[in-house]
């Protein structure tokens, strides 16, 4: 089972005719999907570094020299893949009725005493990368930390050179920020 890159490209763009989309949804999954996916994403970015793992619309983990970093399609770099990329984004917080009602007017408006809607933007291309609706005070959610080395080594059978420890380093950064304040 395999699909052409053209069909997959159109699938991701939402422009594949419905009968083909439905076929891809319904049939057994294609084994070469990940490799073609990466090729399609690689063709669409402005940089040359190898994409190792997509993280969302516009965001990928890439290999840059000996480092692995999160990078936006536009080229902006968000730092080491093991720390929450949101720490290096721009943030706009909808935390009062006026700002919330720009998106959620009237009856649809969350309670600003309890809830805030955080928007994370790329500081260069201003893409909206993530919308986070959380209780007031909740830490920025680290939505996904992929175990890249296990994936390549154990699931694809193609280990990556220079494997890196799989651990969340977000709090190393916030700890440093805390020391800056003190």
């Amino acid at each position, binding site marked *: 089972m395999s699909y052409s890159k053209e069909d997959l490209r159109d699938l991701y763009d939402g422009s594949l005719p419905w009968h083909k989309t439905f076929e891809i949804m319904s049939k057994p999954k294609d084994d070469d999907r990940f490799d073609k996916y990466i090729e399609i994403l690689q063709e669409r970015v402005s940089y040359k570094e190898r994409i190792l793992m997509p993280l969302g619309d516009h965001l990928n983990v890439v290999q840059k020299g000996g480092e692995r970093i999160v990078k936006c399609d536009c080229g902006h770099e968000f730092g080491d893949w093991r720390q929450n990329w949101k*720490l290096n984004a721009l943030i706009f917080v909808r935390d009062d009725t006026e700002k919330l009602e720009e998106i959620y007017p009237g*009856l649809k408006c969350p309670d600003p005493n309890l809830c805030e809607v955080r928007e994370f933007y790329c500081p260069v291309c201003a893409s909206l990368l993530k919308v986070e609706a959380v209780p007031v005070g909740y830490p920025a959610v680290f939505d996904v930390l992929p175990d890249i080395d296990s994936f390549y080594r154990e699931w694809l059978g193609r280990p990556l050179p220079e494997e890196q420890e799989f651990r969340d380093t977000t709090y190393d950064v916030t700890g440093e920020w805390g020391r800056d304040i003190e």
Partner: protein
Amino acid sequence: MSESKGIGEGGKSIKQIMTENERLYRETGCYAGIIEPNLLKEDPVKGELFHSRIMASLIAGRETTRMVSGSPFVREVAELCLGIYTPEGDNIAQSTGIQIHIKLMGDNIRWMINKNYEEEVGINDGDFFIANEPVISGMHAADVYDILPIFWEGELIGWVSTVIMEMDIGAVSPGLMPTANVERGTDGLKFCCERIGSNDKLNRDFEHKIEICLDMSDIFLLDRKGAIAANIRVREEIKRIIGEFGLDYYKRATRELIEEERRNQIVRIRQRMVPGRYRGVVPAEFPMADQPVSWIPAKRDTIRLIPIQMDVLPAGGLVLDFEGIGEWGWHPFNGTPQAVWGGVSIVTVQTLAYDGRGNLGSLLPIEVKEPPIDSLFNPSQIKKLATSTPWAPLLDVFGMWTHLLGIAFYLRGFREETFNYRSSAGWQMAGYDQMGNKRPLLAAGTGYFGPGACGVCDGVDCGGWLATPEVDMGSAEVWELFVPQMELSHRFEPYSVGYGRFRSGLAVPTVVMIHRSQQLVGSGALGTASDGIIPNLGQFGGYPGGRRNNLLLRYDNLPELMEKRQPLLHEVGHPVDLKDRFPGQVFDVGLIPVPTEIYEGDLLLSVSTAAGGLGDPIERDPAWITADMDNGLTTEWQANNIYCVKTRYDEEEKRWKVDEVATRELREVKRKERLSRGVPVKEWWQRYRQRVMDRDMDDKILEMYQSSMRLSEAFTREFKDFWALPDDFNL
């Protein structure tokens, strides 16, 4: 200790067989110790035929129930499901329907085995058992299980069980799944795997009891007869299958079906996902302060955090962990570890194991870490509590799990599998129907929900309801026969959407007018615990849908309007000015409407909102927006303000068109606005940290964090690490 011969294989007791199979699984990692599942593979056509025959019997059984039952929950919405089980209660196959109960029904069977029913109660050919006690295993009392043992020549070779959601279980008003109840006695009738029939005949004393105890005894008893008919039909078909395939083949093949599915599930996980850690959080709101309950300590509003972490293991398994979950409370929304498995079951059959082969094997590669004792999902006081509605927070949690699974599919490139679910809440009533009978009154509308955007297209309008894969609201005309109301419209609500490059599906609000009831009390029916805090279901740059609403609208001059044949309210319209537009009073009654008397001509609105859009809304194709506007699914305000698309209506062609130049400009302005409004996260973090240090937040939010911190050192540590708080700081 009795020396009587056991009813299981070779004269063993069922408990012995269960214990032995559990040991084999522990030692080999394979279900029932089946290291080499060869029987089905030896003759695949025979194996397929065998499975198809079982499935056909279950689906035919389900349809049988629908023909016998008088309940619109069964006939219209098909809130039922059948499963077939091994002698020790392991699910082999399940029909379509509310598959949330597949493991829970098996857990009831295992409870009977563990309680030594075989010797102390008796398990005989032709017995009917009934259960609906969440303390044993279940979602809430309204879901009733009818369980039938299957014997072959004196040996117990399996069980068949049917679940039906009842219209009346005898609970405190509003009587089906009440919300203003706290103590277990208010839940209504509870059955703890009780025998209610023998020799294929329902006990007459049981019928007498139901006739006296339930307002809708006729519906309840017809449901039992429907379920029993289905169970007997399946049992007889299983006997025919055994006659045809042989008993040895049946025993081995049914167990291989479970082991084969366990292996397939691991293959699916490894094929479609990426190993790693996926995180979400669900806040659950329980507004009980104003509820008329007599257990006074319950009268407080609380919020509980339910963090959810999914670890996709390199070996191919999944682990779900709720570390950081808050404490239980005096309300009917507490869950149990078994109920959590209900959520796992229903999500699994809709996201990974949707090929009709789902069974216990689909669940074996999944580990659910037991929620801490005295948490919302594991109260030690569970026997004291009402458990009418634990699925309100549970559906939110499992909507979030679909979101996390969606991220994993997206990372692997299977974006067509990416989406998420959201649940909702609505009105529920008790009182007199059009025929003058007092009873619970709830009209279901499972098709009203909008699921999240898919990774390759918009979400299906009105197409997502986590609790059952089959989304069908039933016929309005039938519901009108059962509930004294007239449905005024079924219209897509543009403001229900979650915005994004791909938008979520839209929801359809319920808009009904009360008609011909002498006395009614309205209250809430909860399928969500989200109110002021909207769910974190935005996918990448997409927004989650906004707040959902319960509204009571009361006309000032309804008879006059009708006399003059003036239009009544048919849709919510723009959510800002409803109060100005409506000629009467508008009451926004919140997540749980405090029980209140409602009258002829009142309008009840349940306005669901959708899960999450996917991707940046200003990247949405403008042509899709005008197409939506032509169909009444997007408004000009949304096109302009959310999607930044300038449109105009072409009066001649009668359709909306895009002004491409103005759209480019509008989108450029939006990007510049983002750059000027946005601040570096570090800057925000520094300010926000001080706010956390000052405990500058609503008391309910503070108490929510304190509750989680009382139960979890790990949660406390992470919270402090993120905000770089001193070790001795206490929130």
